[in-house]
């Protein structure tokens, strides 16, 4: 087989959650759901940025895990989706599409966004 076809047979390689150069971080909700998102995306949140890069105050910057005792999973999931939307359309050269938010979640999401500074 040609080289290209061989490469296609390999599993895609993802970065991990371990260590200071990890590509991914884990965000844990109050109801113990774990959301594994790209570190670059999570840094959209000013609060997470501080937690992950602060001078050792937070143990999060060693384990790349952040637990949010007050943010439930149905809200944290929307937050993660916002991170992707934000990164995708920053410096966008086209018109930015709307970000859909269920009105029932809007207030909780606002409080989470306020806390996360994003």
């Amino acid at each position: 087989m040609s080289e290209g076809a061989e490469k296609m047979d390999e599993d895609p390689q993802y970065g991990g959650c371990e260590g200071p150069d990890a590509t991914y971080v884990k965000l844990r909700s109050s109801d113990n759901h774990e959301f594994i998102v790209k570190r670059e995306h999570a840094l959209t949140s000013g609060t997470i940025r501080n937690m992950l890069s602060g001078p050792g105050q937070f143990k999060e910057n060693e384990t790349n895990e952040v637990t949010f005792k007050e943010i439930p999973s149905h809200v944290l999931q929307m937050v993660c989706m916002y991170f992707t939307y934000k990164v995708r359309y920053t410096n966008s050269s086209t018109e930015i599409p709307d970000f859909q938010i269920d009105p029932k979640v809007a207030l909780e999401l606002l409080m989470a966004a306020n806390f996360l500074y994003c």
Partner: protein
Amino acid sequence: MSYRVVTGLCYFNFNLCCHQHCIGVWRCSTMEHDEERQRWMFAEHDERCENGENCVEPMNAKSPKLHRRVGHVAVKYKNFVVVWGGYEDDEQYDNNAYTREPYYHPADEVMLYDCEYEVWHGVRIHGDPPPRLCGATAGVIGDRMLLFGGFMEDRQLGTSNVRTVYELDLNKMAWKQIWADGVPPLACDKLVSWCYEGKFYLFGGFGPWPDDPGYYRDVRLAAHPGAMREDRCWNDQLVRLADGRWEWPETRGDRPTPRAAHAAALVGSRAYIFGGRLGNRLNDFYCLDLETMVWTKLEPSDPAAPVPAARSWHSLTALDDHGRLLLYGGFDALSQPLADPWIWSPSGQRWSPCTWLSEPPIRMWHAATPGEAGEVVLFGGLASSVLLDQPTYASGSVFLRETPKSLIRLCLDVLDANRETSVPLVWFTPSPLADGIIARLTACGSKPVV
């Protein structure tokens, strides 16, 4: 659910959430729930409060008072935009005939736009206001807005250009006139300004031929050739107000010709000027380095690259600290209003058409300021040619974004769109976040969109 909540003299604290942009505390009127119309509102005030406090009223985002204006000024101050002045056409029916007269917006009020919560407020101002003007220019130094020049049409005071400087203290919301030493600038309108290192710079303009031309030997003047206008001219004055004194700095390099209705933007220590009108409409592009006072004419590095058409009454806004600029709209050489946004890229030394909006609206003689990060907002202006008998005024602000809104703002939009269910929930929200939500929900009408 019908209930009435009167919060008394509520201190409307703008130091909300974790943002440090505090403009101070304004005493507002009482906030009430209007059971009949089922909405929250500030109790209406027609005149100043008895104890002389400022009157702040939330404005409907669609109010014509906000958007029906041309020749106004708009400046960014902390997380707000201050909009003042300008005029619109007032149609009156008198003796079986319609007449159109320009109506100049009152000088003792400003429209304040909160960029984050997207809420407008009208604020009454104390002190000694300037005359009602169009075509003036303004800039912010610290907590003060300086206003120069402009054109007034007043039944009693007459029609004329002014060369006065007024200062609006943005903390106390009070006007006062500034008297400065030295040779004052020529009275004119449609000029540009910028503030650098505590100095207020002015450039260009259109106004009456000076009575005292001896003082202005270094200023080039170009007469307007029209029959009734021999006594008016374009100028290329470059003057700055520093510590209560007018200074006329010497410059070198490629000095731009006289012009008016041009546009300027400041990036760091460089002021950029584009186009304007000197008889014909121009599309030349200059940069003034405020450290060396050297003018440079900027040409795209690739001569075949597209450049914006010649225009006046457009806007130029800095996008970031690197020198990217956004040019919008204006009025072209064939007297047609324009709707094309362009972006100047300093690294590529070229103009490119801006694609952030799929259908950018026509705007001329509008004002543009940066909004939140990655956003430019256009206020007012015309959505048609100014030469029409009945020009079309802007019906709303225009937002140009290259970055998505913050999640806080997106949530506020959704809460705003679902007011019936949102309002009761606010009482379960911790203050001061609640204050921000209340601000947005009490502003009648939905978010400003074109």
